[in-house]
Structures are given as structure tokens and as C-alpha cells.
């Protein structure tokens, strides 16, 4: 992956006076959906602001698709940032807000109108609302108009700071589906969100950060496997969970077993997932237990967050 396809942080640190923003972050993000995960004040927004030039690194270098934010003309044609600041220039309608931004790209009025209308349609903000003053918008509508402004010029990199805040479940699902579509189109979509369960489903990779330090990064499954000190939890649906549990406990990598409420499955914790799968295969071949399904149970951003950062990600 070359520098012109990636977002790169090379040993980047940011200090706000004596306060640490982020420290020694080296990170390369390839196209797809990346979720930044971390508690409040962990440095997620600082990373996004560094990426888009709203703050400058105290040390190190940030480049996005080989471009630097100081080259604003080219940089912001490729990058859209939906920041979490819930404020707007005064006295504008939603449509004017998006249109004003597009006009600054140097395009014709006709093209700008077309792109503004398209962006509003993509975020599903209806036309009557778009022509009302933003001051009268609900929080969800303000979130949508910010998203529309960020995607209107068809950027290759979309940075979204808490984009699901204030959205109702339906709008959240629509936004996630939009992010997925953009990710499939080969765009970089970098999201920070505290709604881990939802972003987990669409993310190609996670970046875990706490206290300004990068804890882990990569595909969720890879990151989970790297967390070796936490036994992996799996759910096995089978006809004889009690027998399966006893066979599993005969080996020492299995540390916990818990019967599912319906009696037709079992949660198992294992310290060695490779050995576990080998044993499970043997049991399946023996035929004593009929295994219907096996699924990792803590192979998600929420669980990884809990293991690596310490608190429950859902309560962020």
C-alpha cells in the first residue's frame, strides 16, 4: 500500500501546552471503514483534527493520500470532515450551508446546486427542511446536514467524529448503510463513535486508543487474537452441551463453561483457541455431540474495548 492510498501518522505527538493529546502515534490506514475506539479524552478527536489540519502535530508528520493539510486546495478536495462541533455559521438554511461550501471549490453555481441537492438526498434530509434555517433544526437534522456538507464534494477520505450522535435508530441504520456503501466504493471512512455495537458491524478495522496512546489496531478478529491474556469466549450450539462441557474441561485450556438459557448451547472460554478448534473437530467426528454452530462471542469491538481499556465500551 503506497502513501498515496493511505492515511499515515509517522510518530505523531500532540501536546496542548503541558496536556497530552496523543503520543507517538504511528499508524497507516488503508481504504475501508476504520473505527477509532477509546474513552472520552483518549485522543480520538485529536487524531481526527490532526488528520484534517485543524491542529498541527507537535512532533511527527501526518499525510492523507500523500497530501498535507497545508496544501488546502488539493487536500480538501479529497477530504471531508464531519466534526462533532454542533454549531453552524449564523443565518443559513441547510441548503445554503452546503451550497456555500461547494461554491468555495470554484465550481459553477449549477454544479454546486446539483451536488448540494444530491448530498441532501443521500443523507435523507427532505427538501422542505433543507430550505429552513438551521437554527430551527433538531439535533438529528443538524447531524445530517453536517454529514451532507462533508460528503457533498465526493471526497476520497471521509472523517466522521461521532456521526451517529443525536440520530434516531432508523437514521443511524441509514447512516451506517451509507458509510458501508462509501467503504465499498473504496473510500477511506474514519469513524469515531461511542455506539460500538453498531459501528462494529460495519468496520473493517479498529484503532484502540486510550490516554493518547495507541493500544491496538487492525481487523477486529486479529486484534482479538492478539489479546492473549484474555481467554476467548465462544458460543457453541449443540444438542448435548453438558457432554461437550465435560469433554472440554478434560483439557486444561478451557477455563469456563456456561450453559445457554435455552439449554441448547454453551458459552466456553478457552486460553488456546487453536487447540479448542482441534478438539471440537475430534468431538464432532466422534459423533457423540451434534454441533450445529460455533461463533466467537467476544470477538467484537465492545469486548476488545473492555479487555484492553478496562471499562465497558457501551457506557462510553
Amino acid at each position, binding site marked *: 500500500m503506497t502513501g498515496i492510498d493511505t492515511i499515515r501518522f509517522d510518530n505523531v505527538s500532540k501536546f496542548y501546552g503541558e496536556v497530552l493529546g496523543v503520543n507517538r502515534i504511528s499508524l497507516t490506514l488503508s481504504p475501508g471503514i476504520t473505527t477509532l475506539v477509546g474513552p472520552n479524552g483518549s485522543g480520538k478527536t485529536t487524531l481526527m483534527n490532526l488528520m484534517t489540519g485543524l491542529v498541527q502535530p507537535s512532533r511527527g508528520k501526518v499525510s492523507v493520500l500523500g497530501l498535507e493539510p497545508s496544501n488546502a*486546495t488539493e487536500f*480538501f478536495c479529497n477530504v*471531508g470532515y464531519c*466534526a462533532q462541533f454542533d454549531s453552524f455559521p449564523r443565518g443559513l438554511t441547510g441548503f445554503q450551508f452546503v451550497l456555500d461550501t461547494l461554491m468555495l471549490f470554484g465550481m459553477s453555481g449549477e454544479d454546486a446546486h446539483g451536488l448540494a441537492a444530491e448530498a441532501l438526498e443521500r443523507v435523507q434530509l427532505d427538501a422542505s427542511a433543507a430550505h429552513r434555517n438551521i437554527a430551527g433544526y433538531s439535533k438529528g437534522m443538524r447531524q445530517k446536514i453536517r454529514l451532507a456538507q462533508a460528503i457533498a464534494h465526493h471526497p476520497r477520505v471521509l472523517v466522521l467524529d461521532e456521526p451517529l450522535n443525536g440520530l434516531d435508530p432508523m437514521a443511524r441504520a441509514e447512516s451506517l448503510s451509507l458509510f458501508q456503501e462509501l467503504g465499498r466504493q473504496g473510500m477511506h471512512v474514519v469513524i469515531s463513535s461511542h455506539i460500538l455495537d453498531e459501528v462494529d458491524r460495519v468496520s473493517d478495522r479498529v484503532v484502540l486508543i486510550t490516554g493518547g496512546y495507541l493500544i491496538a489496531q487492525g481487523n477486529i478478529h486479529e486484534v482479538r487474537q492478539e489479546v492473549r491474556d484474555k481467554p476467548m469466549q465462544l458460543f457453541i450450539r449443540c444438542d448435548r452441551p453438558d457432554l461437550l462441557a465435560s469433554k472440554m474441561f478434560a483439557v486444561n485450556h478451557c477455563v469456563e463453561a456456561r450453559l445457554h438459557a435455552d439449554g441448547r448451547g454453551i458459552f466456553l472460554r478457552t486460553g488456546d483457541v487453536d487447540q479448542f478448534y482441534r478438539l471440537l473437530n475430534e468431538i464432532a467426528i466422534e459423533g457423540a455431540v451434534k454441533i450445529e454452530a460455533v461463533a466467537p462471542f467476544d470477538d467484537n469491538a465492545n469486548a476488545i474495548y473492555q479487555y484492553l481499556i478496562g471499562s465497558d465500551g457501551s457506557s462510553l
Partner: protein
Amino acid sequence: MTELIGTLRQQPWSLWWIQFRRFARIEIRRNLITKRAWWIYFLAFVPAVIIFIHLLIDRHQPSSMTEDTNVLAGIVQFYYVRLGIFFGCLGIFSRLIRGEMIERSLHYYLLSPVRREVILLAKFFAGSVSSVILFVFAMTLDFVLMYIGYGGAGQDFMLHGPGFGQFQAYLLVVTLACLGYGSIFLLLSLMFRNPMPGALLLWGWEAINPVMPSLLQKFSVASYLRHLMPVSVPAEGIFALLTVETEPVSAWVAVIGLLGLIAVVLVYCCFRMRRLEIRYATE
């Protein structure tokens, strides 16, 4: 040098010009048409109200025209340059960047594909246009109200006498005052979270500047403007400090000197703008 010229030629000047105009249009729309600027309108038009009352209640004898001309010169020198334009520009120009930071909306512009220098210069241009339109209009109104009561004598003073020349000189003074104070307040707003203490210091500096050494006088807007005043106001006591010309220089030197000062301030503003960070939490 050839390399520099080559690099300059390669820059997207036409795009920057389009962005500058569009940005300035957005800013002028927001600067001029806002209820929040009521106090600036008040500052601009309060002399017009007083002159209008004078028009209604005073008998305008031709012999009192010289006195009224001096009063008008005093209004420009003591009121507009020292108070009205000074604080009006403080309101307009310090809002351009700092106001947007307080309202947490500056990041939208910093995230647009516009060079920060273009953003800054467009904002300065918009602020200048807004303040010049406002104060030139207010001063024109002052002129009209001051001499309309004299009827034919007033018309003759304006069209065939020294009136029109004085009017042109005041237009130049007002325009340069807006640009000069505007650039400084823009810089103060880029340097400090609250530009007001800096502005008050500048206000004091402008007042005591005539007694400063000649070199320091060059760092004052009012000192340049003093050389452009078409009418000397007979001032006494502390007011004499505001009108005294310690080192008379020609008008064009004063204009070029002030434009040079504005250019230096704007270059430094551009430098600050490039390093500006969005940290709304600290605002």
C-alpha cells in the same frame, strides 16, 4: 529568482481569485446584515443625529459656516478616528476570526479547499468593505446635514469652494482608518482570546503617540491620518495632543506609510492564520 517567479506562475491564481470573491461575498452578507451590529450603526450615525438636531434648531448664517467646518473637522478627528471608527472596526474585524471561534463555526472554513491566506484576506476585504460602506455613508450624511441648512451658500461651498476637496480628504481618512484599524484588530483577534485589553492599550497608544519619538510614531494609524486632515482643528489642552503634527509630512508619504503598515500587519496575520489551531474548548 527565476525559480520563484516560475513557482508563482504555477499557482492556481484564478481559483484563488474565485474563492476570494465567493468568500468575501459570504462575509459581507454576514457582516452588514446582522442585528448584532446595531451598536456599530449607532457609533457611525450618532454624529448625523446630532448634526440633524443642529440643522433643525440652529439658524444657519453664512458667517457660521467656518465654525461648522471646524466642528465637522473635529467630528472626524476626535470622534470618527478616535472613537467611532476605532471601536466600530474593533467590533467588525475582531469578530471575523475570533467571533467565529467563539461561535464554533470557523472550522467549516478551515476545512474548505481554500488557502488560509485567501480566507484571511477575503475576511479582511469583507470587513473593510463593510466598515468603509458604513462610515463613508455616515460621514457623507454628516456633510449633507451640516451644509444643507446654508442653502445656496452651502451648495456653493461644496461645489465651487473648498468643501468638495475636504469631503474627498475625509473619505480618504475614513477609508484608511478602517483599513488601518481593521488590520490591527484582525491581528489582535488572532493573537488574543479577548482582543479588548489589546484594543484599549492601542487606544491609549494612539492618544500619546504624538509625544513619542519619531520612529515610534510610524507605528500608529492616527499619526498617518493626522497628515491627511484638510482642516486644522484649533484644539487646546489635552485635545491638542490628538491634533498636533510633530513632523509634518506630505499626504502621499502618509498614505504610502499607512498602506505599508497595513501590509506588514496583514503579512503577519497570514503567518498567524497558517498556524491557527481549532481548540474551541479553550475559547
